[in-house]
């Protein structure tokens, strides 16, 4: 198991072999996802790729150059890339009890996979923020924290 920790104390845990630094990012998202009517309620290859690699840019460090579609991201080598002004999402692993309410509220940003782990987007898209906030409000264990972009 490999974890990336950042200074906020958040850990994003990836299944072995799927650390972004270990694995090239899959060029195409597995076909099951975009075609199924409700991607989060199917049993596709949920436990094989962290959510950030399934949709867009998730604020987790990646090997190589930052993707072209994040022009505002501050490029700093060896650091997490963040877009300014977007809240950082973190889930307290010690509290989360996998009730998956967050997944019901914001299926594009949270995923309780079959391996019994929660995958989540640490920097959800602006269009997702309303849902992410609702997920944070309704989380039974109040494990989801949104905090403004530091610095």
């Amino acid at each position, binding site marked *: 198991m490999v974890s990336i920790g950042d200074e906020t104390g958040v850990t994003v845990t990836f299944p072995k072999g799927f650390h972004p630094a270990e694995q090239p990012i899959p060029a195409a998202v597995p076909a099951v996802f975009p075609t199924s009517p409700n991607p989060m309620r199917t049993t596709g290859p949920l436990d094989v790729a962290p959510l950030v690699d399934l949709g867009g840019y998730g604020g987790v460090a990646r090997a190589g150059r930052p993707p072209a579609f994040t022009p505002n991201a501050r490029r700093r080598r060896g650091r997490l890339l963040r877009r300014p002004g977007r809240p950082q999402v973190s889930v307290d692993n010690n509290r989360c009890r996998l009730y998956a309410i967050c997944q019901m509220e914001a299926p594009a940003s949270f995923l309780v996979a079959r391996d019994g782990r929660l995958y989540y987007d640490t920097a959800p898209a602006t269009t997702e923020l309303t849902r992410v906030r609702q997920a944070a409000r*309704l989380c039974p264990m109040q494990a989801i924290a949104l905090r403004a972009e530091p610095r």
Partner: protein
Amino acid sequence: MRPYRTEFTRALVDVGRARRQHQPPRRQVVIVGAGIAGLRAAERLRERGFDGSIVFVGDEPHKPYNRTPLSKQLLAQTGRLTDLRLPVYRELDALWRLGTRALGLDLARQRLLLPRGEELAYDGLVIATGVEARHLPGAPLWSEHVWSLRDLADARGLSRRLALGVRHVAIVGTGFIGCEVASSLRKRGIEVSLIGRGKALMASAIGGKVGTLMTRVHRRNHVNLLLGRNPVRWGTADSPASDRTPAGVGVRIWLDDGSRLDADAAVIAVGALPAVRWLLGSGLDISDGVLTTASCHGVVREGTATGVVPSVVAAGDVARWPNLMIDATPRRVEHWITASEHGQAAADALLLGPGQAPPFTPLPRFWTEQFGVRLQGVGRPGLADTCRLAEGSPRALEFVACYLRAGTVVGAVGCNAGARLLEYADLIGLPLHPRPELIGSLPGPVPAAA
């Protein structure tokens, strides 16, 4: 020059005055009950751009906090007081009248009646007073050794009593709160006796079959289960002489089967009653909670005539409304997630009015954790006539059970099931038979426990 200037200044002053006079008056929304539903209503009002004033009238001396850890983490001493904080993502800019109990409501004049004869005018009123713990007839709740658990004051009192040293606590009531308290106290190494009327734990909420499985979990964790029994007489160490218990016994409970139970303290968790006494005589229909339309607006009843009040909405545990997703019968729901959503919907309903507001049709969702077993439910399993195992293994305590009423799915309960439950949430309101693949996986009812 000079006369002209004076004219000009005067004209400016007139313009200012006219502008002030023609400005629409600042509207005022009063929220009665500073709980989760009230908080979410205020937040939603601001999110929708409401720029009038918001006044909270709350009985407790605290701003809204999360009640759900009171019986779990807080009682088990695995959590801290800061866990009760609730996040708010909008500046509320509200006036907090805490420690103030609403005493009455004058619908015709749109006034809330407060202590000392104070009247508070409102343009919109959100009723979110929640429920209060039901009193068990005969139980000496005034005693230092007998507690119920609804708010922070109760939790504090109980934990103060526990800190004085207890070895054995009797719990009356086998609903969610009673069972959670049992689990939390066992975690602290305290002996627990659980007294209940029914034969299975939490049966009214999750049905007898899953209830029986949970009964087994409690028994395995050495909870002394006294099921099918009722307390008939009480004595405590601080009772008047005739009922006083011998030294060293905090509470003595006589049960209706003739037995007697001695404990150091007792917790009473026999359900809740909606906090509607203050609405008596207001004209609102308050039989078992504040009756509202499907869109959260209050309903007045005079004789047989009924009417909708556009300026009054109710949300949370106190409201009784028809959830059209399930059926048209008005019911109360006492779930925390639903209360949050209800507050938001009520705020929208207040802004939109009864004509435009959509019906509030949430999927009721609840959770509880006892002895490490995570139970999670959607819909209204309590309404079901049949309970079927949908997948998993009850023996391993990892399963999903489906609840049917007249062949239609009304709820599902997952036990340590995580996201597997979500599939069944989509089925609510549907008859089970158009899903042959699901029928195929139903091996029959959950076996009853020995």
